[in-house]
């Protein structure tokens, strides 16, 4: 098997360049999808027969909740790769994930709370799904705290990688908490492949939003990754061209 692609993946200047090239390819489709989904979700989709127009929060709540979990998984995967193959670029990618993930965890919490008030009559209940999401926020905070607590980058990389990997056990707990406990939170309705329980004109904008947010995240991650690589490699010779270009 030809492993050159793998080694090239590990080379900072290469990743820096590739990331730069790829960014617009994710950013523009993301923007288009999100705008289209906004139109579809806010204008085209009919009001829900139970929740009226209140259900439209789903178009921001579900994607941000999805992102918060997806970003954590990405972070843990990157951290594991960094730890196992000693790949600095992977550590840089993991480091770039945390802040974005924490942001969208907060967004999912707040939009969820805003949705909870009209639907459940209260902003917050100590429901397993909700609590688990709050714990996810603390995981992100712990990860960032650990990183901030260790000055040496290489050491911070490895220590936080261990934490990210250990913390991944929480992700399935969050995803499946709704089924394990009888939560008042919505059970997965989109990801059920057999029979989506939503009419198409509601579902399609949601799917577009999900894809749009995912692409958006990749674009943001790529920019952050470039910054991180540049910061770490500031002593290397290739940075000369990259910084002045």
């Amino acid at each position: 098997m030809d492993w050159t692609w793998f080694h090239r993946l590990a080379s900072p200047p290469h990743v820096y360049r590739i990331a730069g090239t790829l960014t617009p390819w994710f950013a523009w489709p993301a923007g288009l999808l999100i705008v289209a989904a906004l139109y579809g979700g806010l204008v085209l989709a009919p009001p829900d027969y139970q929740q009226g127009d209140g259900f439209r929060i789903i178009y921001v709540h579900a994607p941000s909740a999805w992102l918060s979990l997806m970003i954590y998984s990405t972070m843990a995967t990157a951290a594991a790769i960094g730890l196992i193959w000693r790949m600095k670029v992977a550590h840089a990618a993991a480091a770039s994930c945390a802040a974005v993930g924490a942001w969208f965890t907060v967004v999912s919490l707040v939009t969820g709370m805003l949705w909870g008030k009209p639907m459940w009559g209260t902003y917050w209940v100590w429901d397993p799904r909700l609590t688990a999401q709050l714990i996810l926020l603390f995981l992100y905070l712990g990860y960032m705290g650990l990183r901030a607590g260790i000055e040496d980058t290489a050491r911070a990389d490895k220590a936080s990688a261990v934490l990210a990997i250990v913390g991944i056990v929480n992700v399935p707990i969050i995803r499946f908490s709704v089924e394990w406990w009888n939560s008042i939170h919505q059970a997965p309705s989109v990801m059920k492949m057999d029979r989506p329980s939503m009419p198409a004109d509601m579902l399609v904008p949601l799917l577009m939003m999900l894809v749009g947010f995912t692409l958006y995240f990749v674009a943001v991650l790529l920019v952050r990754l470039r910054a991180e690589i540049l910061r770490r490699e500031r002593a290397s010779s290739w940075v000369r061209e990259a910084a002045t270009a």
Partner: protein
Amino acid sequence: MNDFLSMGGYAQYVWPSYALTFVAVIVNIALARRAHAAARAEARRRLSIEGEDR
């Protein structure tokens, strides 16, 4: 239009949600770009004083 803005009585929940989400979306773009710009500036600063230390 007014209908649209009132969101069937849910305006006070729907619009803040959308606002917060898109603030987060924009802020994250801004933060990422700022981090990149700062890293480039730092690298350039280091290059300009190069040879003094190492």
